[in-house]
C-alpha cells in the first residue's frame, strides 16, 4: 500500500506552518512533538502508521474554517479525525499533512423530544447520544460495535451501520441535519429537523464520503422511542447452508427482525471461550435473531421464527426469557473481535457485502482460500443484510501481514464476483483503495472524483484514501469534443 509521495516543500515549511496554526488555535491545541503525535499515528487499522506534520485540535467552527483556508492556500493536506476507530485507515495521517482532530467538539447541543431530534457536535460518541436521551426512553438506532468509542462525525463519514440496521437503517437513514466546513472556509448547513432536501441531497452525498469532501462540525440525528420489549433467539444449525436458508425464509415470511446475525464454527468457539454466552458448540452455524416491539408482537414472531428454523433443520433453539439473558446472548457476538484477538496474535477484519443467497458458496470458497493462503479465518456476519465480517488470523511478527492482505483481497474480489461490494460499513479508506478498480470503471471513479473537485478543487482533504489513482481536477474536467451531424439515423424521431 503506497501513500502519495510527501511534498518536500511542505515538509520544509513545517515550523512556519506550526507557528501559523498556533495563531489560529492558541494554547495546547497544536501538537507538534513526536511523543504527542504518536497517539495519532494510526486509527483502528493499526497495520498502517504514519506520524503527521502536526496535530491540530480546534474548539470552534471559526478556527476550523481558518485552518482549512490556511491549509488550502499553503498546499497542506488535511486528514480529519474523530475518535480514530476507523477500520479502513480513513484517519491514517500523511507525512506532509495535518491531523484535524474533532475531539473537543464533544457537546450535546440540543435535545428536542417534540421533534424526536438531537443536535450534537461531531465528537460526541454514538453511545453518548443514546445515553443523553435514555432517561426519556429514547435511543439513536445505528449501533456499530465500537459505539462506546466511535464519534458521530466518524459515523457520518463512514455511513456506519451496526447490528440493528436491517430494520432501522444505517447512519444515512437516521440523519436530519449536518453542518460542514469546506476547504474554502465556507460553512454550509444542510437539513435541520425536517425531512429531505429542497435541492440536491448533499447530506446523502456527505454520508459515507470518508472525510474527502468537507469537515463535519455539527450533526442532527433522529431518535426513536425504545421498543416495549426485545427478545433474542439463539438457533444452532448443522451447516451454514441451513442457517442461510433459514434467514431467507424468515425474510420471505415478511419478518424484518431488529437484528439477525450469523457466526461460523470458529467464531462460535472463540466467543464462547471468551464470554460463556451459552452458545451451542456442536453447531456449524449460529443465528442470533432479535425481535423487538410490543410483547404480543415479539411472542408471535418468535413462534414463527421457531417454526421456520425447525423446518430448516435447526439443532437447537433458545429464546431469551429476560433482559439479562438477551444481553448475554449478544455479549458473545459483540465480543467476537476481542475473542478472536485472544486466539491469534493479530487479526484483520474484512467487510464485504454479498447477496445473502450466495452465502454458502462464498463460505465454501473462503475455506479454500484459507487453505491456499495457509491462514485461519473466522466469520461473523450481519446475515439479514449480507454484510460479512471475515476475521483473518495472522501473526505480523511471523511476517504474515502480506499473506493476510492477499487473502483479504481475494475475499473481497470474491464478494464482488458474486454481485456484492468491497465494504458494507467500514469504508474504503486506504485498506480497500487499490481494489476499487475491481468494482468501478475508470469513468465511474473519474465521476466520483469530479464530485470531490466541486468541494475541494485542490485535492487537500484526505488524499490517498478511497481513490487508487489521484488526478488533478483540471485533468478530470477536460472535455472531449467531436463535433458533427446528429448521428444514428436508426434512432426513432418524432
Amino acid at each position, binding site marked *: 500500500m503506497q501513500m502519495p509521495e510527501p511534498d518536500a516543500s511542505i515538509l520544509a515549511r513545517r515550523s512556519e506552518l506550526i507557528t501559523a496554526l498556533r495563531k489560529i488555535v492558541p494554547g495546547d491545541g497544536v501538537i507538534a512533538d513526536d511523543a504527542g503525535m504518536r497517539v495519532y499515528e494510526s486509527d483502528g487499522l493499526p497495520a498502517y502508521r504514519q506520524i503527521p506534520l502536526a496535530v491540530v485540535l480546534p474548539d470552534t467552527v471559526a478556527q476550523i474554517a481558518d485552518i482549512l483556508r490556511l491549509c488550502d492556500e499553503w498546499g497542506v493536506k488535511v486528514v480529519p479525525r474523530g475518535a480514530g476507530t476507523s477500520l479502513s485507515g480513513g484517519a491514517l495521517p500523511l507525512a506532509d499533512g495535518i491531523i484535524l482532530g474533532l475531539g473537543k467538539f464533544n457537546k450535546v447541543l440540543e435535545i428536542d423530544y417534540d*421533534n424526536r431530534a438531537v443536535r450534537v457536535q461531531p465528537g460526541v460518541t454514538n453511545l453518548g447520544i443514546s445515553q443523553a436521551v435514555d432517561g426519556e*426512553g*429514547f435511543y439513536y438506532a445505528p449501533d456499530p460495535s465500537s459505539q462506546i468509542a466511535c464519534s458521530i462525525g466518524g459515523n457520518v463519514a*463512514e*455511513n456506519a451501520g451496526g447490528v440493528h*440496521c436491517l430494520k432501522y*437503517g444505517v447512519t444515512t437513514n437516521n440523519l436530519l441535519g449536518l453542518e460542514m466546513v469546506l476547504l474554502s472556509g465556507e*460553512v*454550509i*448547513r*444542510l437539513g*435541520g*429537523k*425536517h*425531512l*429531505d*432536501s*429542497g*435541492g*440536491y*441531497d*448533499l447530506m*446523502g*452525498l456527505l*454520508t*459515507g464520503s470518508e472525510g474527502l469532501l468537507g469537515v463535519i462540525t455539527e450533526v442532527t440525528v433522529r431518535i426513536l*422511542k425504545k421498543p416495549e420489549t426485545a427478545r433474542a433467539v439463539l438457533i444452532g444449525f448443522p451447516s451454514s447452508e441451513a442457517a442461510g436458508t433459514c434467514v431467507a425464509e424468515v*425474510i420471505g415470511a*415478511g419478518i424484518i427482525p431488529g437484528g439477525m446475525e450469523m457466526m461460523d464454527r470458529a467464531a462460535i468457539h472463540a466467543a464462547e471461550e471468551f464470554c460463556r454466552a451459552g452458545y451451542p458448540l456442536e453447531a456449524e452455524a449460529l443465528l442470533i435473531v432479535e425481535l423487538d*416491539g*410490543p410483547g*404480543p408482537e415479539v411472542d*408471535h414472531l418468535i413462534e414463527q421464527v421457531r417454526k421456520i428454523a425447525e423446518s430448516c433443520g435447526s439443532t437447537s433453539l433458545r429464546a431469551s426469557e429476560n433482559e439479562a439473558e438477551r444481553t448475554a446472548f449478544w455479549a458473545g457476538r459483540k465480543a467476537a473481535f476481542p475473542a478472536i484477538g485472544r486466539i491469534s496474535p493479530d487479526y484483520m477484519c474484512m467487510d464485504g*457485502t*454479498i447477496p*445473502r443467497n450466495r452465502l454458502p458458496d462464498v463460505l465454501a470458497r473462503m475455506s479454500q482460500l484459507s487453505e491456499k493462503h495457509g491462514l485461519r479465518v473466522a466469520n461473523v456476519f450481519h446475515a439479514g*443484510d*449480507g*454484510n460479512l465480517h471475515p476475521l483473518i488470523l495472522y501473526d505480523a511478527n511471523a511476517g504474515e501481514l502480506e499473506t493476510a492482505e492477499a487473502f483479504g483481497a481475494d475475499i473481497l474480489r470474491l464478494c464482488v464476483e458474486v*454481485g456484492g*461490494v*468491497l*465494504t*458494507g460499513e467500514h469504508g*474504503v479508506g486506504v485498506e480497500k483503495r487499490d481494489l*476499487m478498480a475491481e468494482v*468501478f*470503471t475508470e*469513468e*465511474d*471513479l*473519474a*465521476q466520483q472524483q469530479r*464530485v470531490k*473537485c*466541486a468541494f475541494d478543487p485542490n485535492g487537500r482533504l484526505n488524499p490517498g484514501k478511497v481513490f487508487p489513482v489521484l488526478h488533478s481536477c483540471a485533468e478530470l474536467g477536460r472535455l472531449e469534443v467531436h*463535433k458533427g451531424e*446528429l448521428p444514428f439515423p436508426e*434512432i*426513432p424521431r418524432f
Partner: protein
Amino acid sequence: MAETLKPRDAAQVAELLTWAGAEDKTVELVGGGSKAGLGRPMDTDYRLDLSALDGVSLYEPEELVLRAGAATPLGQIQAMLAQQRQQLAFEPPDFGDLYQNLQEQTIGGVLSANLAGPRRIKAGAARDHFLGLEAVSGRGQAFKSGGRVVKNVTGYDLCKLMAGSFGTLAALTEVTVKVLPAAEKVRTVLLFGQDDAAAILAMSQAAASPHEISALAHLPGPIAARSAVSYVGGAGAAVTAVRIEGPEPSVLHRTAALRRQWGTLGAVEELHGHNSAALWREIANVAPLLPDAEAAIWKLSATPSLGAGIMAAALASGGEGYYDWAGGLLWLSIPGQDDGGAALVRGALTGTDARADTGHATLMRGPAALRERIDVFQPGAPALAALSARIKDSFDPRRILNPGRMYGAY
C-alpha cells in the same frame, strides 16, 4: 416543439448526449412524462424519450431487491411486488390527478423527484430505497454507483445525489431499489375535533410512542369534509389520523394503545382495510386540495413542531392546507396571488428561525408563467447554491440536461 429522439438502449443515450454536448444542444429527459408540470418550464433543443429503457431485469423477493430499466412503469413494478406481498415502502404518491396527466409514472421519475408518501416518517423517502444506478452524465459518459446490496459504502453514494435532482445531473438508465414486505394488517385511528396546534401535539405524542407509527396526518374540518371515506368526510370536524401496520396481534395491541392515548383528547374512531387505504391514498395524492384547479399548490417540509405556526403564516392572505408526516409536511393551496404565495410561504419558513433551518418549500403545481417567474425549489444560501452549481457542472459541464428545470441558471 423540440424534436423527440428515442434511444433504444443506454449505449444510444450515451452517444446522443455526447453528440448533444459537442453541439451545445440542450436536452429534456422524459421517462413517462407524468411529472412534466413539476419544476420550472424548459425550452430545449431536443426531447430525449427514454421509454425504451424499461423492464424488470432482476427481482429476488427473499433478497428484498429489484432492478429495472429507469423508464419501467411504476404500476408494473408495484403489481409484481404485490404478487409477492411486497411493496416499495416509501409509498410513492400518484400525482396523476394533481397534474391532470394520464401518463404513467416511471420508477426513474419517482426516484429523480425523490417522492414519498405518508410512510416517509417510518420507512424513509425514495432516496432511502435507492441502492444502485447506471446512468449517463451530461458529459455523455456512462457510469454506475451503488449496487444491489443494502449495506454499501464503496465509493460516494451518488444514488442520494441523483434522488431529487430532476434529471439535471444525468440520465438514469437502470436503477436498483430495496423492496420490503407489505404489512399483514393495517389499522387507522381517527381523532376528531382538534385545532391545528392541538393536532400537532397529539401527533407528536403518537410519534414519540414506541408503537412504530407508519403515518400521521391532520386534516382541518373543511378539508376533511371532502374525503370520500365516510367516517372522515361525514365527521363534521377536523380529523387527525394515525396508521399502525404489522403482524395482526401487534397491530391490535398498538391500535388499542393509541385509542387509549388519543381517547383522552377527544372522540376516536377506527378505520379498517379499504377505508384506511382510501384515506391514506387521498392524503398522499393531494386529493383534498384538488377541487380548486387554479390555486398554486405548495409542499413544505418543515420542523414538525412549528407546523401549525408556519401554516397560519403562509395562509395569511387566504388559502387552505393540511398536514402529513406528523406535522412535518404541509400541503397548501393558495389562490389568487401574483407570486403564487411564494413570498408568504417562504417567509413563513424563515420567519421562525433566522438560520432558516426550519424547512423548504416547493411549488408543486402552478401555471408555467408562474413557475418561470418564481423559485419553484427552495433557493439555498449563497455558499450552498454555489456548491450545488459546481456539483451540477461536475456531471454536466455544458449544462445540457434539463436546463432550468430546478434553477434559472441551470
